[in-house]
């Protein structure tokens, strides 16, 4: 199995790469929704991101990706039952890759949220819980390609878990709850259908990608891909240093984020923007500020400025505008228009 295409070797698609990095720095942002044509590198970027995320710590053999400091009760490896046992018997804490889990469109509800362990139930008659994809994605990323084609009942399930951070399973005689906090990354092609507004709203950032228009850039895409196909390991090794730099940056930024102050003008600008655009609810403002902080952290700044808010506004807000079937301009354009007006006003008063 060849290693994934290196993140830093992806040509162009800066907005996409930025958004994914923001989500990696601050998982509470609420995920990224990528809409765009086929063959624009959406899946490649997400799979590449998986390779460069900093490792997480977990106990060996833990199927729930429990944080050793805050284990989940039902986990047979790190939970209550294990804790009561002899200390020496507990598995060691090891580093493992941040999980990036693919949620296939056809996944059954069982597979997603976990179910009774069939094997154990049928062969030994034991009632055990077999964790699903949500448990595997805990503390990592959950990637849904073609998210707009996802079955409605799965959408409902995801909505619930994404909002609460807890997966509650009440079925087949089981009653289980375990933490499932993950960054939701969805991609899709808008021509195939729209996304339900409820799910749309759960995504922190949203962006439209298209294939590069510039012929030289397109040739470069092909050239790198060819080099990668010819010798995947060699190619990945060539880019490893650059990827490692990004990994270090993510780790450092995430640490910085914890102690970051947010100046009042940033709050004010975010509020003004959301008011101007008529964004429903406070989720927009919250995401806007978080994204601005993450951006500042990535840039190595001590606190976010209004420039950070302006830079992330389109991706944080464009999917939260009220749908207006009669407005021909894209919603990104509307956000930018509002940003222009508002930021000019702020600068004028300052």
């Amino acid at each position, binding site marked *: 199995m060849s290693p994934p295409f290196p993140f830093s070797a992806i040509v162009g698609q800066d907005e996409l790469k930025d958004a994914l990095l923001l989500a990696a720095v601050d998982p509470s942002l609420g995920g990224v929704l990528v809409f765009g044509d*086929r063959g624009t590198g959406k899946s490649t970027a997400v799979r590449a991101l998986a390779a460069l995320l900093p490792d997480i710590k977990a106990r060996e053999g833990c199927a729930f990706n429990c944080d050793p400091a805050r284990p989940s009760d039902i986990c047979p490896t790190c939970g209550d039952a294990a804790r009561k046992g002899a200390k020496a018997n507990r598995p060691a804490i090891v580093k493992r890759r941040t999980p990036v889990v693919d949620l296939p469109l056809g996944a059954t509800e069982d597979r997603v949220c976990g179910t009774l362990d069939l*094997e154990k139930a049928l062969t030994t008659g034991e009632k055990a819980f077999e964790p699903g994809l949500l448990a595997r994605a805990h503390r990592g990323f959950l990637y849904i390609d073609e998210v707009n084609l996802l079955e409605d009942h799965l959408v409902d399930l995801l909505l619930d878990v994404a909002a609460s951070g807890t997966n509650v399973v009440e079925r087949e005689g089981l009653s289980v709850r375990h933490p499932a906090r993950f960054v939701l990354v969805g991609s899709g092609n808008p021509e195939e*259908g*729209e996304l339900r507004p409820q799910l749309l709203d759960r995504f922190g950032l949203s962006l439209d990608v298209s294939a590069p228009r510039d012929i030289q850039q397109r040739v470069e895409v*092909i050239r790198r891909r060819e080099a990668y196909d010819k010798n995947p390991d060699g190619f990945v090794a060539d880019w490893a240093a650059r990827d490692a730099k990004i990994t270090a940056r993510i780790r450092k930024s995430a640490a910085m984020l914890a102690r970051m102050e947010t100046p009042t003008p940033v709050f004010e600008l975010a509020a003004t923007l959301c008011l101007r655009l008529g964004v429903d609810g406070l989720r927009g403002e919250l995401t806007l500020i978080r994204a601005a902080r993450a951006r500042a952290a990535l840039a190595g700044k001590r606190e976010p400025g209004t420039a950070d808010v302006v830079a992330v506004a389109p991706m944080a807000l464009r999917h939260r505008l009220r749908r207006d079937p009669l407005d021909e301009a894209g919603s990104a354009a509307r956000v930018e228009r509002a940003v222009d007006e508002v930021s000019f006003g702020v600068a004028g008063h300052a």
Partner: protein
Amino acid sequence: MPEPLPDPSGRAPASGRGTGRWADALLAAEVLTVGGAALGGIHVRARCGPVLDRWLAALKRMQPPGAAVQRVAATVTADALDGGLDLSQTLTLGRPVRNAGVLARADGGLLVLAMAERTQATVSGILAGTLDTGKSGCGAPACFTLVALDEGADADEGLPEAIADRLCLRLPLETVSLGETDDADTPIERPHSDIDWRKVVVPEALLDALVGAADATATRSMRRALALVRVTRIVAALEDSAQAEPRHAATALRLVFGLAPSAEDVHDDATETEEPSCEERSDASDPPPQDAAADAPDSRDTDTDPPEGEREIDPAALQDMLIAVLAAQKLDPSLLAIGAGERKAGGGAGKSGAEQNGSQRGRTIGVTSRPANAALRPNVAATLRAAAPWQHLRRRAHAATGGGPSRPIHVTPSDFRYLRRRHRTETTAIFAVDASGSTAFDRLGEAKGAIELLLADCYVRRDQIALIAFRGREAELLLEPTRSLVRAKRSLTGLPGGGPTPLADGMRRSLELAVQIRRKGQTPLIVLFTDGRGNITLDGSADRVVAQDEAVRLARQGAALGVKTLVIDIGRRSRDGARTLAETMNADYRVLPRADAAAVSTLVSTYMRGA
């Protein structure tokens, strides 16, 4: 070197076999065999028949011995693809028995996807993911070459784009007649090349040209450009050429976009020396070959001279070539005749009804001991509950017969219980709008408004909308079935109106579309905006009497097909025309002389929920 091809010069396999479409088909099979999983696979458009069988047989003969060949129908379930616990085996043996999914079993070989035009979103999502990662859903290695057999009857029906985009090769076998496949009986051996195709050099200018050519097509996908470059390399490697040349690129263009070889290509292949004259050279980076080529283009020995490969072609020339071939291809999307569709619709209708309850997806509505289809997995809790009362008896029986070590629980296949599920089938509303005469502008405005309002609401119910407008000589499908507001807006802007009324043609197109939709397992609903007075016949001539006659005939056909229809009378003064038509068609009839978008939207919305 075992040279499988009966070509004395050892050159192009294509030219060795001649230059027809069948030769191209075999070349595609060779390229596919050499490229393997790196190409993703091939999209074959063909009906079941001897041509397809011969091609598949040829492809299989080319595979290395022992390579897996798995064949599945597109109606395969997600479980079967990914594999899982084999329940009856597990119970019999008393230990977990897993069966490998189709994807894992196809690892390192071919996966033939039959009836690929019926692939559901679920299956196409899984396949696309596996093509991307080389791993099946449960993590088993699954690197295979997908051979998608697309029997789509017309341009609107086919392999889902999500898969098609990931397959590097296209092969329109439907245009090949059995007579052309004569040499299929000659033994076909495994394609052989001394050169690793990944190491074939593609000159800069050629790379530019290839990317440009891919750009010139409608798709913006980068995967097409990648496919072009890869196939160019393989074609060159098959000719034992270490460097890709323009003619390799031209062959690759045909294979990647599924184009028939044009007369020009045939000419090129046959008389190699003609080539320079029909392809312009660009300014090459290294002057010597360019000068030589410019001085004496026709005198160069094309077979042996290494600098031959350095000859450049103008990206524009290659693009022009592609566009020319593409334009030539545009002519053939054959429309399905109503008569042929009728038969299929009967089968389709039954299926769509059955799907509603025997579904594997959707909400649970109960438990049953008989699975709705073979692929359904038993529900464990319900199965155990069914088995519970028998445990005492069975344990005794088990001990009495001495049937091995005692088991904690005895479950037999008769205990299996299955969940019954129901999911809503999608409804597609076909708006057929009379856009003729003076009311055209208003009518179209209303229809457009209604469509946008409906679509703004459609994501909730996953319904789709299509729009057919009839005016002038014929009806036109302005908006293919979609639930995308983005796409609808794009096709609805600048819709023209005016002219006479080809009502019959509008009805025919609507019925054709309805039949197609039904075949996909969805429920069609026709919303016909008309005053019931057509004056253009199906063949486009102006004859009111014949036109009316045809309309009545089509209305009867519509009634026979049983497509739910709503006729909205838009005549200023309501006359009997539309009402009679609605009665003949078994349709509901509404008079809305001043329909506004909102009213139409509400009305259709009610019907769609009921449909």
